[in-house]
């Protein structure tokens, strides 16, 4: 694990170089580097997954992962969570002031990035919930972008129902249907 954490930024840089040749769209700034600083161990970079042949479709907008998400650099609870209706990823009007607060926090902290972590309640099926958590996180991201936040400052992650309270009450389940807004150091 530690091994991976140390070398990933550099490997990501190597990947970015490999990719710049075939990518049509401009490369986004690599958040992993600003987040974790430069790595070391240049000799290992070449051993990372050879990206040649990764995509069958040259128009693919898929990109290799460019960082990891260790718990050490996360501040939870500073910004409010956004809650959702059952099986829904629409932003409720009651939740909008929270997102305005988040956007304002980002304006006041121009170097901060956020992790939007999507969650579901325990009812349902594992993989659909993983997808639903993904869409909830992206729904929050889209809303923040409409408030003027640069998409490069927003990372998304779905935990699906993996951290949900099993057998929770209706109230607990409502708390599980959320996107946590986590500040990244």
């Amino acid at each position, binding site marked *: 694990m530690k091994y*991976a954490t140390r070398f990933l930024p550099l490997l990501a840089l190597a990947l970015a170089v490999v990719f710049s040749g075939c990518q049509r769209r401009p490369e986004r700034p690599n958040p992993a580097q600003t987040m974790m600083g430069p790595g070391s161990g240049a000799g290992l970079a070449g051993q990372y*997954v050879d990206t040649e*042949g*990764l995509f069958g479709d040259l128009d693919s907008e*898929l990109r*290799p992962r460019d960082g990891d998400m260790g718990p050490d650099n996360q501040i939870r609870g500073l910004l409010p969570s956004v809650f959702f209706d059952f099986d829904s990823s629409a932003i409720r009007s009651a939740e909008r002031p929270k997102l305005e607060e988040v956007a304002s926090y980002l304006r006041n902290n121009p170097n901060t990035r956020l992790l939007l972590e999507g969650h579901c309640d325990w009812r349902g099926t594992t993989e659909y919930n*993983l997808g639903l958590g993904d869409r909830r996180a992206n729904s929050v991201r889209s809303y923040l972008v409409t408030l003027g936040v640069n998409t490069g400052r927003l990372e998304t992650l779905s935990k699906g129902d993996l951290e949900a309270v099993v057998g929770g009450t209706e109230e607990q389940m409502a708390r599980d249907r959320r996107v946590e807004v986590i500040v990244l150091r």
Partner: protein
Amino acid sequence: MAAVVLMAGLASMAGAQVRDIGDITVEAERDVLLVRVESPSDELQRLAQGAFGAHGRFRLAGRGDTPQFTFRFTPEGDRGVDLEILSGSPAQSLLREGFTGTTRRQALLRAGDRAVQRTTGLTGFFASRLAFVGARTGFREIYTSDLFFGEVRQLTNDRSESIMPRWSPDGRYLLYTSYFQTGFPDIFRIDTVAERRDPFVSLQGTNTGARFSPDGRRVAMILSGEGNPDVYVSNAEGRQIRRLARTPGVEATPSWSPDGNRLVVTSDLAGRPQLYLLAATGGNLQRIATDISGYCAEPDWNPADPDLIAFTIAQAGRFQVAVYSFSERRSRVVTTEAGDAIEPHWLADGRHLLYTARTAASERIMLLDTITGRATRLSPDSLGKCSHAAAHFPRR
């Protein structure tokens, strides 16, 4: 990631025995064979009784019963079992055959499959290898075992939530989803022969739902890196990744048709999750009119009978397993769990399937005969919560 992660100390656990075979519902069905199972070895006797007691085509003869067949399993050396099938009065020997395996348990299960095949014509499934998710350590990890939870091995020890293992058709590889290393959901591959594990697909977004095609040359998966979760197909190495369909919905759990030409997937394209068909070369999603529930998910296409798809439905505030028939154009519920029945996975005979019985307090892997409804608990309490069962049946 080039860093080859050797699975540290494959935890081997003492062969857990089938202790509780649960309630057996015997349906009045002419097809049910009354059999007696005999072995001089207590362990083999228990295992064989558990296996035939769980199979929907058999009923174990009681004291006063006259069995139609007697299956006699005699240990032969450390790794062998001789099967003798007897019938009639006085008893006539119909068949004698020797079986070997990596262990005596495995030899017994192979011999049992032969007895099933010889007396019913059905393909056996007792010798299946299981992959499943166990949570006895407090974290979801990947395990393997035989079908009756003997020879249990813990393959991962990552403490990072590993879920949904699926076998390659040759039984060598497992693909699964885990937050290992990056903290994001990625697809990993375990080589059970070389005992190594590598990242298989690690792209921005959610990477999950990986499943080998029946010929083992392609892998269907769900990736969200281009916006929201869509269906993709790669080659067997996780390269040449190509999107099959772009939809505004969330797709999940692709499962291949037995001929490898189509996929059935979950999608909430029309609002709530339903089942859709998709050509393996790409195209539009076509709704399957399961007509049974507003929530249909986790489809598993029957590998032995392309007419049938098992899936999970929401019904009366709970979840049950249902089976859809293309020829009958209708679905029927096949489980009667008091809690939830989820995660169906067909076995090699195309008649029985595995599922997870879930309550707030427990998760157990169950064996179900979809014809009679007979449900038998497989995972022992000693293993804690067990779920996400996938079976591989070695064809020899």
